[in-house]
């Protein structure tokens, strides 16, 4: 399952989610401002508290909204 770590009022997070919807990619969203556990996961993955972060395996990830990198990560 694709995971998207995001926060409210984050235009780049919205762009990622919109793009995934457009490509019919199912994803699970985590609001890391409220969800402490997900925030720890995010920190483990990227070593930072910057969003959006998109990942499948929790190892490889794409930071921000980068179409080319998202396509590569998700084989789109």
């Amino acid at each position, binding site marked *: 399952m694709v995971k998207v770590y995001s*926060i409210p*009022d*984050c*235009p*780049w*997070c919205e762009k990622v989610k919109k793009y995934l919807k457009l490509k019919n990619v199912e994803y699970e969203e985590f609001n*890391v*401002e*409220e969800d402490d556990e997900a*925030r720890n996961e*995010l920190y483990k993955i990227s070593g930072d*508290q*910057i*969003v*959006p972060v998109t990942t499948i395996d929790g190892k490889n990830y794409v*930071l*921000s*909204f980068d179409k080319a990198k998202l396509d590569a990560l998700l084989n789109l």
Partner: protein
Amino acid sequence: MGIYEFKVKTNRGEEKNLSDYKGQVLLIVNTASKCGFTPQYAELQELYMKYKEQGLMVLGFPSNQFAEQEPGTNDEIQNFCKVNYGVTFPLFAKDAVRGEKAQPLFKYLVEQKGFAGFDESHPRASGLMNALKQKFPEYLEGDSIKWNFTKFLINRQGEVVGRYEPTTTPASMAGDIEKLL
């Protein structure tokens, strides 16, 4: 009415009495978007880390009353956002800081310390001034909050002893903070 009589709301919706911070030195600041290039967050966080053991508390009050970007920084937009603005000091619920709808705390702060002009030596001072003149001329009137990152210093007795405009960097406030600690 003193500063310790105010109640504010945390970013998780809980009520907080400012009297809980009695006896500490307070740096109260209205903050901006958690996205893009906002270097003052990093400096505020540095001040907080450096002086919190000695009794400094930084309190951030986000508002969406000002344009998202600082004027003159369009070339520096970064396409990510920071969780909790990348800071560990307390953040409060997003609310107005200027105008009729301003939260009472900020009405009080600007009454205690009026506007005494921007620091003209800051590289963004003239850009900020021009942007305000063109887009929000009414913001320049009176003592109201002019822009994001207006900072107020409160001493251990609860008196508002300093007001620093967005054109004063948090790092340059270190000396004034040390005097109060």
